[in-house]
């Protein structure tokens, strides 16, 4: 090879090396920037997770805890190291679906689960939490683990309980006027009758005194004509005949009135019970009767109420205060629906029936009121939804009723309605107290 050729070759090799070195430097810089960007985005992601208010727990493919964010650590009161490798489901009680069904089911269906349950915090004891659990997948859709998000709803639940109590007080307040009126009528005639009895007793005393005088005179052998005439005169003036006929009626009416008052007061008492948190055996028929009694002033002008109560209905494990409140609410709603349809004209009807239906006790409350459109029907159980004018209620009644029946009793509350013709509410309560409906699969 010629010298010039060799020189050119060496020159080319040198230039190629330079290019290669420059490329290497460029790549090295690119790599550095890429790594830094990656670190930054990881750091950013970590910060997002750390600033999340919801607790986030990630497991491996066996369902064992792998990592937790800051909120999870403070919610549970444990450090990651303390829980690492422990099964996620052990955070929840035995009756939680996640635990009873096992996470295998999640991997099988790949369907997210949502629900409410309790979990134990080292610091705060038992917490009410809302959870969601979903499968974390790899880029090629293989299961990689579970992402579980927990939200502490203990405070929210306690606020709801307070709201429920407020709602209860509100409806008691509204009813109080009606009840006062209901009590007023019997009290009025008990008063009138008692005054009549009082007057009669005084008249009879006067008459008896005349008879006393007659007896004295007869004993002494004196003339009696004058005394007899006096007795006749007094008897006539006080109208003894009328008095004797009316007294038993007055007394009977008074007893009736007092009974009526006692009945109303008794029914009222069921409502003012300091809301027991424990379920007790409740007689649904009695609950229906007292609710109807308390609500009488609401329905008596617009409807006739008929009761068809099954005699063989077993007692139902329930929270008596809450249950009364629900029935009352539905009955009052029925009366309002009829009032809205008929104004003060034609009488409507409210039919309340109880019966046993399999493992459930059922209450049907049917009215001939205005009914509802589908769009209203779909929203009646939503919190704060109301069709009534502003100021007439919080709109919490049916939402709370739904919560009481479904969440607290594991029952169902359904509504059948024809717009313009009437509505039937069907409440079913499980006879078996072990049913707990607080956890449902995600809708």
């Amino acid at each position: 090879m010629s010298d010039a050729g060799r020189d050119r070759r060496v020159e080319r090799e040198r230039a190629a090396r330079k290019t290669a070195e420059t490329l290497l430097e460029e790549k090295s810089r690119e790599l550095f920037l890429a790594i830094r960007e990656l670190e930054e985005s990881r750091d950013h992601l970590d910060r997002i997770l750390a600033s999340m208010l919801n607790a986030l727990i990630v497991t491996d493919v066996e369902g064992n805890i792998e990592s937790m964010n800051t909120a999870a650590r403070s919610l549970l009161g444990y450090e990651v190291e303390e829980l690492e490798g422990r099964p996620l489901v052990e955070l929840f009680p035995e009756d939680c679906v996640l635990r009873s069904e096992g996470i295998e089911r999640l991997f099988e269906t790949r369907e997210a689960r949502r629900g409410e349950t309790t979990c134990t915090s080292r610091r705060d004891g038992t917490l009410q939490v809302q959870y969601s659990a979903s499968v974390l997948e790899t880029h090629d859709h293989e299961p990689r683990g579970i992402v579980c998000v927990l939200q502490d709803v203990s405070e929210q639940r306690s606020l709801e309980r307070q709201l429920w109590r407020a709602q209860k007080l509100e409806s008691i307040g509204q009813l109080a006027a009606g009840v006062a009126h209901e009590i007023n009528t019997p009290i009025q005639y008990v008063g009138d009758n008692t005054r009549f009895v009082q007057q009669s007793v005084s008249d009879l005393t006067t008459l008896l005194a005349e008879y006393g005088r007659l007896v004295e005179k007869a004993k002494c052998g004196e003339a009696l004509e004058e005394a007899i005439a006096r007795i006749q005169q007094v008897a006539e003036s006080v109208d003894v005949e009328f008095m004797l006929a009316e007294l038993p009626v007055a007394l009977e009416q008074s007893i009736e009135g007092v009974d009526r008052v006692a009945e109303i007061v008794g029914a009222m008492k069921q409502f003012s019970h300091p809301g027991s948190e424990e379920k007790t055996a409740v007689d649904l028929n009695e609950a229906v009767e007292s609710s109807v009694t308390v609500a009488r002033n609401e329905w008596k002008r617009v409807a006739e109420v008929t009761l068809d109560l099954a005699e063989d209905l077993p007692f139902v494990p329930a929270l008596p205060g809450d249950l009364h409140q629900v029935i009352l609410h539905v009955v009052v709603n029925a009366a309002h629906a009829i009032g809205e349809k008929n104004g003060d004209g034609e009488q409507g009807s409210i039919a309340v029936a109880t019966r046993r239906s399999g493992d459930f006790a059922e209450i049907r409350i049917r009215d001939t009121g205005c009914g509802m459109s589908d769009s209203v029907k779909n929203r009646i159980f939503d919190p704060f939804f109301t069709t009534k004018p502003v100021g007439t209620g919080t709109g919490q009644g049916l939402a709370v009723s739904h919560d009481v029946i479904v969440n607290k009793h594991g029952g169902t509350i359904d509504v059948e309605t024809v717009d313009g013709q009437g509505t039937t509410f069907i409440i079913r309560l499980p006879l078996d107290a072990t049913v707990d409906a607080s956890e449902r699969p995600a809708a």
Partner: protein
Amino acid sequence: MKGIVFTEFIEMVEDVFGPDTADEIIDGCDLPNGGAYTAVGTYDSRELLALVTALGKATSTSVPDLVQAYGKHLLTRFVVSYPDFFEGVESTFDFLESVETHIHVEARKLYPDAEPPRFTCERDGDHTLSMVYESTRPFADLAEGLMLGCFEHFDEDVTIEREDLRVDEGSRVRFVLRKAA
């Protein structure tokens, strides 16, 4: 196109036709970088075509034949530089199928800006493999040469039937490879 295709080509020219020929054709092509190629760089594929055309003139050989010969040579180089890709592979067909599914995938990890061609493989029994080559560039001859190199490497008696398919842009060629029973 990746520099490795250029550096290997120039090395081959130097080995087979001597450094003077190599210098001559580089000099004659008026290349932007004066022929200073590095394997890790990226260059216009037309530069390679210019080099091959110049070599064809200098040696009075047809360009397709040269490109094919280069392919054959390149495979022997790959055997040395990338032994891992050949590890445990027993036959030509298995190896050729792995070009699309594995080798070129790995190549892109090394050279993210690489644009290797696409091969759609289909087996018809034990003895026939159809490979459809698709590329934005006209390097079917290189593919054919690489295949011939494979037959030699695995010491198998295989024939190639080639059919150029019509495309609006780039190239598309079906190779049907038949192994002697």
